[in-house]
């Protein structure tokens, strides 16, 4: 029996006044009860040993915790058996769409296949049990992964130096903007360069990041071809400009075909050129941002290098920088402290260790210009192992083919869907293509949201919608390189069918989705009267007794 067909169960749990839900007192059907509803006092899953008498006797002579520091009431954590735990989470997992379940063309997110051998690698005991403060002598393997990955990212991007520390793309942006400010300050321009230029097609994180470092955002309009208007850019660039932040290819999926002139203008103004690397999957082996003249870029390892998105993290957002920003990078960097870098690289590429090579973390405080740390330890190491494995599995030819196939697939969808949906920027795209649902909205009152919900009924995750903001009713489609032609063709059929239904029976689309575990949810009610936690009101035993076989 599939999840969607399960009979709904009743959740009669009351809500405390402090967390009054919009539906207090109502009996709502539940797809899967909360784990707290399966709890029974005294039930156990995992048990732990008791301290020995010897340990207790030894401990008795030590200072005891003051009674004022002790907890009065135990936290109301669930008390369940191991099997009930597993079934609960397994059933919940089945309510998710995921790459491993079906097509997921969510634009800007690069939902490609996550190779399983990478999971095996990250779970190797040598890596999983490596403590971040282990002395370097104990952590040569972990340090080597970090050093080698940084070397590969430098080669792929053309940057002079890489820090792996940032935990996510937005965290990499923050780091990059802090570097930018540190750079201008070191030149005595910290007070004057206070503005960051951001195109109107940018991710929301770009202006939010600028604010976090105390910068003012100036929005640059895109031209009719979806690119940066060079004249507008030149007018905006002046001695107050700290940086230009751009995504290339842009969020419209379009490569900035005057990027050389853009970079020259930024350079001439004395500003820093920041590239949001969200769309790196389109240009591997074709364009190296560092070589082209960008000063800084964040990588999204969870996108381009295929570490699993995890339902919204963890990701990893290393940054690459030009030589002039390198002195400011976060500490500590992984270093090769003994041995010849060329030999270590060459050996590693051949699967050999280098005798005498020794890696260590930089001593903190040794680089006085550093912006400091942006988190604890050295970064999301588990993601580094996966990304390293991914790059090695593909090799140079494979990585280039990744972008080739991603771009070919997006252009295929661009051409195949152009008859059914409006294409505001009708030109060769990179790894994603942005359509508009404007025609459907104007002619039939069917919004892009309705189209997205209708796609759900076909077992496909919808594209990103209503982004970028400059495209009305936007549908941003990123097929990725790992989807077969059959999958792409089926998506084309589904999109055509939805376009036909928008004409023939628009009301039906407004009711979609109908085959998912829940229908459209009352988001306004959720925000007006927030119910953000279970409140442990009166509980009934109904959930446990009506659990289906």
């Amino acid at each position, binding site marked *: 029996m599939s999840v969607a067909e399960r009979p709904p169960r009743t959740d009669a749990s009351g809500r405390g006044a402090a967390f009054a839900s919009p539906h207090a007192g109502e009996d709502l059907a539940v797809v899967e009860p909360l784990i707290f509803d399966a709890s029974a006092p005294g039930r156990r899953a995992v048990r732990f040993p008791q301290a020995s008498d010897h340990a207790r006797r030894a401990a008795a002579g030590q200072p005891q915790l003051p009674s004022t520091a002790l907890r009065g009431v135990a936290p109301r954590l669930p008390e369940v058996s191991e099997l009930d735990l597993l079934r609960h989470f397994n059933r919940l997992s089945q309510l998710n769409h995921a790459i491993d379940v079906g097509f997921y063309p969510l634009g800007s997110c690069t939902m490609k296949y996550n190779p399983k051998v990478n999971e095996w690698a990250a779970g190797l005991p040598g890596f999983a049990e490596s403590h971040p403060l282990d002395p370097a002598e104990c952590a040569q393997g972990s340090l080597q992964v970090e050093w080698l990955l940084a070397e590969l990212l430098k080669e792929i991007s053309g940057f002079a130096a890489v820090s792996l520390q940032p935990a996510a793309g937005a965290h990499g942006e923050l780091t990059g903007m802090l570097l930018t400010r540190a750079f201008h300050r070191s030149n005595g321009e910290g007070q004057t360069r206070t503005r960051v230029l951001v195109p109107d097609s940018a991710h929301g994180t770009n202006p939010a990041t600028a604010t976090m470092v105390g910068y003012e955002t100036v929005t640059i309009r895109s031209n009719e071809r979806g690119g940066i208007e060079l004249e507008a850019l030149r007018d905006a660039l002046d001695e107050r400009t700290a940086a230009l932040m751009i995504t290339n290819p842009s969020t419209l999926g379009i490569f900035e075909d005057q990027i050389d002139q853009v970079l020259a203008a930024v350079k001439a103004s004395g500003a820093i050129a920041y590239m949001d690397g969200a769309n790196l999957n389109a240009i591997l082996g074709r364009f190296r941002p560092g070589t082209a003249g960008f000063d800084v870029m964040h990588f999204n390892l969870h996108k381009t290098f295929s570490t699993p998105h995890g339902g919204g993290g963890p990701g990893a957002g290393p940054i690459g920088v030009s030589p002039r920003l390198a002195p400011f990078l976060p500490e500590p960097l992984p270093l090769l402290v003994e041995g010849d870098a060329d030999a270590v690289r060459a050996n590693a590429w051949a699967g050999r260790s280098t005798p005498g090579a020794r890696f260590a973390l930089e001593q903190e405080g040794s680089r006085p210009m550093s912006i400091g740390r942006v988190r604890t330890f050295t970064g999301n190491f588990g993601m580094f192992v996966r990304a390293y494995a991914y790059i090695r599995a593909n090799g140079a030819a494979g990585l280039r083919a990744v972008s080739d196939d991603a771009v070919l697939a997006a252009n295929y969808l661009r051409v195949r869907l152009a008859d059914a949906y409006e294409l505001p920027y009708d030109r060769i795209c990179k790894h994603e293509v942005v359509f508009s649902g404007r025609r459907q909205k104007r002619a039939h009152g069917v919004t892009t949201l309705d189209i997205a919900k209708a796609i759900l009924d076909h077992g496909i995750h919808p594209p990103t919608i*209503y982004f970028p903001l400059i495209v009305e009713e936007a549908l941003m489609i990123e097929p990725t390189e790992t989807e077969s032609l059959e999958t792409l063709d089926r998506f084309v059929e589904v999109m055509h069918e939805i376009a036909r239904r928008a004409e023939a029976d628009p009301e039906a689309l407004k009711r979609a989705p109908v085959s998912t575990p829940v229908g459209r949810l009352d*988001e*306004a009610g959720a*925000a*007006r*009267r927030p119910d953000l936690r279970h409140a442990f009101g009166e509980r009934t035993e109904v959930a446990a007794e009506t659990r289906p076989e």
Partner: protein
Amino acid sequence: MSSTYPDDLRYSKEHEWVRVDGAQATIGITSFAASELGDIVFVELPELGAQLQQFGVFGVIESVKAVSDLYAPVSGEVTDVNEALRDRPELVNDDPFGEGWIARVTLTEPGELDALMDASAYGESTAG
């Protein structure tokens, strides 16, 4: 969406309205603004006694998918705020010119009203 607006109000370009009653004025956002924002979920109300400046920001209004500053259509001192919006922000959607009012002020610069639009001018400004 209705393109007609109450005749007894004055309107600002930022889609606020003001109803004048002697020295007192009531402020809210228009049906056009409420509809553009969508389902309103939160209104950050000004503090009693706050001094509003015409066209200055005096609060924030949030919907599920958008957020917007509130701009005072007139200058004045806040004498009352619509407490009902704390629990039922949807009143702004349901009845923007009535129960969905936001604040009352004592007018300090009655002449400012001349800088606002009447219903027909506002209606034209939102058409198309």
